[in-house]
């Protein structure tokens, strides 16, 4: 028996060299996770109930089918390291500069020019409970990818005001025992909503402009909509078929935010006039830790009047348009950690 609090999580901050080649320990970090479940392995069996010729309709034999690995959520307080990791592995085109701190510039990769086609970087995921001779759990899942993420900014105090949840998928390939000695737990450089240093959406400055103190919350999300990765030659583990690739489908980038309504609010005018503009969201902890999401062309799709805790508010659903020169969105993250997605 073991308490779930004994569960140790580590995963590759560097990328695997191939989907079936695990991270080396030097490129694995260890972090806490607010998701209290381990990543379950789900082998699927099938039987012969549909086959006639047995003389009856009942199944008589079991067959190994495939690993149907569920998606797994890494839920953390937003930090410079974790945001750099989440954005890099979910979007794919990463340029890193500097010699400490390091600045990561991240854009969604294009299928036509991405060196790995429609595939994003892969990483390994290690989960352990009492690793060693009598481990309760010790395995490394190989060939994991980031399916999507959600960044939530709330009108509340503390680290919970800036959260990032990342949904991951994996092929079904694993090694057990992992053979990995996890490093000491990382101390991330976390943000909170009080550290927002730029907040301008579609021409409205919600931080220092005439609309200051008007902002309530924001949710931004990215979804890669991976296609199933089973194909001839995709591989097997324990006699079960595994997935051999995760190719992005129709990717979706969503942004919703809530603002207090005041006299002269221009959100409605922006919506009905089809006004578009850039959107800049920045959190700055210090000179070594910052995060900026620059949406190149945002319009408003919905502006719904409501109330939040008794205050009249508008819930705005943005529509992020692709700009032919600058693309859709640029994430810029400065963090002390080197080698993320490298």
């Amino acid at each position, binding site marked *: 028996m073991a308490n779930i609090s004994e569960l140790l999580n580590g995963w590759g901050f560097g990328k695997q060299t191939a989907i079936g080649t695990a991270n080396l320990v030097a490129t694995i970090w260890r972090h806490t996770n607010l998701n209290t479940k381990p990543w379950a392995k789900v082998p699927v069996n099938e039987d012969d109930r549909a086959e006639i010729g047995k003389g009856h309709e009942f199944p008589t034999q079991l067959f190994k089918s495939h690993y149907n690995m569920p998606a797994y959520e890494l839920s953390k307080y937003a930090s410079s390291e974790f945001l750099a990791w989440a954005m890099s592995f979910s979007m794919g*085109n*990463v*340029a*890193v*500069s*500097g010699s400490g701190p390091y*600045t990561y*510039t991240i*854009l969604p990769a*294009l299928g*036509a*020019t*991405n*060196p790995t086609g429609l595939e994003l970087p892969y990483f390994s995921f290690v989960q352990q409970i009492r690793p060693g001779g009598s481990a309760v759990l010790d395995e490394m899942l190989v060939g994991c990818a980031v399916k999507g993420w959600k960044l939530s900014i709330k009108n509340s105090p503390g680290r919970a005001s800036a959260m990032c949840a990342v949904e991951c998928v994996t092929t079904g390939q694993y090694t057990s025992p992992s053979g990995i000695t996890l490093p000491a737990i990382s101390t991330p450089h976390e943000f909170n909503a009080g550290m927002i240093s730029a907040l301008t959406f579609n021409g409205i400055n919600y931080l220092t402009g005439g609309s200051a103190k008007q902002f309530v919350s924001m949710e931004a999300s990215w979804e890669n909509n991976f296609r199933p990765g089973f194909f001839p030659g995709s591989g097997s583990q324990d006699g079960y078929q595994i997935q051999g690739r995760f190719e992005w489908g129709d990717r979706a980038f969503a942004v919703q935010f809530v603002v207090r309504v005041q006299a002269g609010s221009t959100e409605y005018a922006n919506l009905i006039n089809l006004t578009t503009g850039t959107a800049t969201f920045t959190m700055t902890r210090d000179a070594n830790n910052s995060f*900026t999401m*620059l949406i*190149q062309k945002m319009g408003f799709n919905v502006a719904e009047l409501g109330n939040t805790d008794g205050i009249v508010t508008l819930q705005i659903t943005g529509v992020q348009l692709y*700009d032919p*020169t*600058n*693309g859709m969105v*640029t994430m*810029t993250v400065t963090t002390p950690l080197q080698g993320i997605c490298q």
Partner: protein
Amino acid sequence: MNSVFMRSPEGEVKEVEATTEKLTILMASGWHQVPAPTAAQKPVVVAEEEEQHG
């Protein structure tokens, strides 16, 4: 000035200033970062030209 080496979809490699504005324009059109060439290495653009012309 921080700089990075970027490679175009056509294979051209050039050193660019690592600002969000400059990198965004390149990366949005398919450029990717590549390692800095070592001092002994010729720039890829030059090497390709030599290969074409013998």
